[in-house]
């Protein structure tokens, strides 16, 4: 990689000669190091493992001994995770529900908050800080804070709506049909604040005349929003969609803390991790699920990159 860059610098340097920018040898060396060292770090720690995940997903390597001792087994790992690996399809479903909830509930709510707070409202800064507070907390902390509400014996919900002292509890997190939704409430609590801040910035950047049209209270407000403001937010909408998809794919910490992502809280990210630090350590399975994540995430990544370069050019 460093060699490629070095030749690139030389070539680029020569071509730029027309602009009377002559780079000395020292300058070329400086540029090569400035671009080359970070490239090596990111290449070595991110892109090399990414490619390795793809390659390992086609082998039967068990993580013990050298990789060269393993065999190429084609798509066997993929066939197996789809057929005889029970948590796989539930995880896919949960990730899809996660994405659906963020897209259709938490994100619109964040947009709604941003739209309201963008009006000339007294105390808007205070409200913004309050709604943004959960965003600075880690998902790990959010898991602990919400367990105080959901815990069957000591939690708020159970103590208000049931009677744990006499053995009658509400165990939202222990019920595989309810726990995903209970977790999503906590996740939405954070996501809405995040989306609100991004949209507030987008709304501030709008043409003031558009914002005035949007500022009409009452009857025509929804119409003005739908036909004028929302379409004008298109660039930020793309970013929001990308952020939301990536957040849904990355979801991990909160379910891992609650029950290690089992019993109704399976997620693709958890399955990958469980194959390294869990009991079942199957490098092939973990890697194939990682490849599933790569394939899904390529779409938002391409959209984001293309979108931001279009913005850069304009």
């Amino acid at each position, binding site marked *: 990689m460093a060699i490629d860059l070095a030749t690139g610098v030389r070539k680029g340097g020569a071509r730029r000669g027309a602009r009377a920018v002559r780079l000395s040898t020292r300058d070329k060396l400086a540029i090569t190091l400035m671009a080359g060292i970070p490239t090596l*770090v990111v290449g070595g720690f991110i892109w090399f493992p990414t490619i390795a995940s793809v390659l390992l997903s086609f082998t039967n390597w068990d993580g013990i001994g050298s990789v060269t001792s393993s065999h190429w087994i084609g798509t066997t790992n993929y066939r197996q995770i789809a057929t005889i690996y029970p948590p796989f399809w539930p995880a896919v479903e949960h990730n899809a529900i996660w994405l659906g909830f963020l897209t259709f509930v938490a994100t619109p709510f964040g947009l709604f908050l941003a739209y309201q707070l963008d009006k000339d409202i007294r105390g808007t800064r205070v409200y913004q800080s309050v709604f943004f507070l959960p965003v600075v*907390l880690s998902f790990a902390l959010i898991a602990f804070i919400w367990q105080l509400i959901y815990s069957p014996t000591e939690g708020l919900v159970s103590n208000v709506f049931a009677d744990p002292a006499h053995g009658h509890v509400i165990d939202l997190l222990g019920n595989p049909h309810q726990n995903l939704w209970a977790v999503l409430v906590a996740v939405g609590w954070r996501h809405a604040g995040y989306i609100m801040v991004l949209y507030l910035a987008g709304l501030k950047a709008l043409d003031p005349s558009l914002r005035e049209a949007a500022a009409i209270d009452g009857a025509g407000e929804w119409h003005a929003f739908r036909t004028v403001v929302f379409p004008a937010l298109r660039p930020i909408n793309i970013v929001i969609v990308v952020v939301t998809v990536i957040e849904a794919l990355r979801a991990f910490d909160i379910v891992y803390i609650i029950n290690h992502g089992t019993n109704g809280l399976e997620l693709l990210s958890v399955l990958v991790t469980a194959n390294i630090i869990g009991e079942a350590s199957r490098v092939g399975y973990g890697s194939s699920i990682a490849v599933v994540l790569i394939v899904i995430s390529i779409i938002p990544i391409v959209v984001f990159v293309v979108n931001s370069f279009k913005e850069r050019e304009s």
Partner: protein
Amino acid sequence: MTAAAVPRAAAVPVVRRKPLRPGRVGLHVFLAVTAIVWLFPVGWAVYNSFRPYSDTAKYGYVSFAHTLSLSNYRNAWTQGQIPLHFWDTMIVTIPAIVLILFFASCVAFVVSRFSFWFNVPLLVFFMAANLLPQQVIITPLYELYLRIPLPGWLSDTGLMYDSFLGLIAVNVAFQTGFCTFVLSNYMKTIPSSLSEAARVDGASVTRQFFGIVLPLCKPAMAALATLEFTWIYNDFLWAIVFMSSGDKRPITSSLQNLTGTYFTDNNLISAAALLVAVPTIVVFALLQRQFISGLTLGANKG
């Protein structure tokens, strides 16, 4: 509804009557109620954290506290070894932020100040690395970390695995892309005449970088440092995968130590959770503007 209306409304009280339409009242009620709901989970944790276990055991969780004390905080501080884990966090976070900002500004400088053929591919290479789900890299990286030897003074296990350097490296590699993207957009806004003038004066590339461009990037750097501090501080995944020794885990990933397998004291956990939350909340409260501008710099420009 322009920004100019705000000072005017404050100066002339008459104008203030205008917003008091029924719609506005409804909106204020909605926002106030939502704000209370929003604060409630944290407020509940604060309330519990001040109640001793005996108090809740006697009167139940949903009751007025008869005694309030700091004992949970004291216990969390010692039992959870919070000072130790704060220290671990600093060992990882501070070098990581310095390296991220240095690497990112170097790459951003090259792609925004020169017109090489590789500028766009290089930027994509960095940006996309930050957008991947973390799980995409952990399996091979874990196996790699188990096989990379480190000298004893860098890692007491002699491996990249379970070492601070391993955690710093993965954080740096993962976060550099985001900062490179933001800084390259930022540097594009710095007039090229500035560095061209310096070039005519014979300033070397490094002089232009350290002497002219870097000082002008201070606001963006401050915003990114705030954001990166919060993100790295809040990291859970890297630490539980690449750090096996409990006493070397940074604070966010060490919280699990407090949940005993058969006895869990929720009041103690509340106190510990709030202690862990304090640094990020303080950073946000003091540097809210930088924090949000960092977040939106990344989003707005792209």
